[in-house]
């Protein structure tokens, strides 16, 4: 436990010193502001592109549009930035050789993996929280309706999906020892999940739903309990991925 605390602290400090914290904080803050703004401005923008004299009826935007923007942006831009920022978190240490000195001082190998994962989760949680809170504040300000429900749960699902990808990123780093390689492994998983979605039999257990069904949860089309199987599967996948990563990392030459 003591080793974990020491190395976890080092990881957090590293996040600050290598600008990871700043980068994620600001990007997710900007995303948070943009979501309601884009929702509000879209009808005006559409109207201004219409030829003179033509008019169509565009429905008044609501809080649902704002949250739709939120989930779309976090799922695309947000996750991509997080994965990019963390792509070298293990592989840079391996390629530079900074871990050797600490490992020979008695730092257990599983601690390296677990502390790194914990630090990544902290930053990912912070990022999602910033974006969620900012979006929520502005949405309430612009669209004071009561159309959106289960917001916390919907965001939690997306967060869970991100947590899975981060675990896979570490596995990728252990497998291929390069930051591009670990991104490729993670991207490969997303492609695989999308392919699996083509089989309707598996759909119900596909973790991908945690990143795609969010708006259905917010609009009430999908009940919260319908996503429980996917959450269970994702927890199992995260634990399995971490376990495999630790096993592989123990055998890895440094």
């Amino acid at each position, binding site marked *: 436990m003591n080793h974990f605390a020491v*190395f976890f602290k080092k990881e957090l400090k590293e996040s600050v010193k290598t600008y990871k914290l700043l980068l994620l904080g600001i990007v997710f803050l900007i995303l948070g502001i943009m979501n309601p703004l884009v929702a509000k401005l879209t009808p005006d923008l559409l109207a201004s592109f219409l030829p003179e004299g033509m008019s169509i009826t565009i429905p008044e935007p609501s809080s649902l549009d704002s949250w739709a923007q939120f989930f779309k942006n976090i799922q695309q831009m947000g996750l991509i930035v997080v994965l990019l920022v963390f792509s070298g978190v293990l592989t840079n240490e391996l390629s530079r050789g900074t871990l050797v*000195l600490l490992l020979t*001082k*008695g730092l257990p190998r599983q601690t390296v993996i677990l502390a790194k994962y914990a630090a990544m989760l902290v930053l990912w949680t912070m990022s999602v929280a910033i974006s969620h809170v900012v979006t929520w504040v502005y949405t309430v300000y612009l669209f004071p309706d009561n159309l959106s429900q289960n917001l916390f749960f919907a965001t939690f699902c997306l967060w869970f999906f991100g947590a899975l990808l981060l675990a896979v990123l570490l596995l990728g780093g252990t497998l291929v020892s390069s930051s591009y390689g670990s991104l490729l492994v993670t991207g490969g998983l997303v492609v695989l999940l999308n392919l699996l979605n083509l089989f309707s039999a598996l759909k119900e257990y596909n973790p991908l739903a945690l990143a795609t069904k969010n708006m259905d949860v917010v609009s009430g089309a999908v009940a919260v309990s319908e996503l429980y199987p996917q959450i269970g599967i994702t927890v199992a996948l995260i634990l399995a991925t971490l376990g495999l990563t630790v096993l592989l990392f123990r055998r890895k030459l440094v």
Partner: protein
Amino acid sequence: MNILEIKDLHMSFGSNEVLRGLDMVVPENSVFGFVGKNGAGKTTTMKIILGLLKPDQGTVMVCGEKVTYGSSRTNRHIGFLPDVPEFYSYMRPLEYLHLCGEIAGLSRERIKERSVELLELVGLGDVNRRISWFSRGMKQRLGIAQALITEPRLLICDEPTSALDPIGRRQILDILAALKGRTTVVFSTHILSDVERICDQVAILDGGKLVVSGPISELRRRYRRNSFSVRFSSPEEAARFAALSALQQPTISVIVDGDTLTVASADQNGTGQLLISLFSSEGIVPEKFEVLEPTLESLFEEVVQ
């Protein structure tokens, strides 16, 4: 007492057999030079000692405890300095030593005390820059400090001087020499003058085995070539002396180089007396007459094919 004992170590990478039955013993409180050509297996041996590699066969004992691959138990006795140590470059030296101390499980006060002491020892006492601005030599010195933070009984350095300029090299060697008596130092190198400068024990690795090992003074005696160097007052005199019929024997070889002769033979005392009697019978007083000590270099060339 022996601080490190290696028995019958075998290790191969694919079809490349790096170690073929390495036996090595390092006595406590020695400064031990581990010499070999590049690629002879020095780094591999060190990684096995640290439990970072699994040998195909053989055992390593550190302070009487067996080293097992993947475990760091025996590493509490060892401080390790890799050939090019890499640090977290955003940290400052004290910060880094603090991290090392915490991982090694030292108390807060002990870490503070040790860090200041060690930075002073390696000449980084007043350096508070980020490590990213460090020169290679400074990184090497910080590397020694981090290796010593746990007060290890054995310090292992992998080619600590090979990447440095002459001044940096001297600084590192001085630091290592200063540790004598406090810690056993094993360092690998292919630079023989470094070994001659600070080591009292040496082992030469070739073809996956030790070909020579022991105290340097004893090796010098054992490998003494029976040769003499004689300097005359002029090249003419040297040439005249070399042409004497008493020296034209199959067991004696004479090499003339300007005013200096190098005479080698199978029988040391006899040849020495022969030379001295020749000086008196020829009425020559040489400017210099000495028995040649074997240099580590000649020894190395002799044992490594």
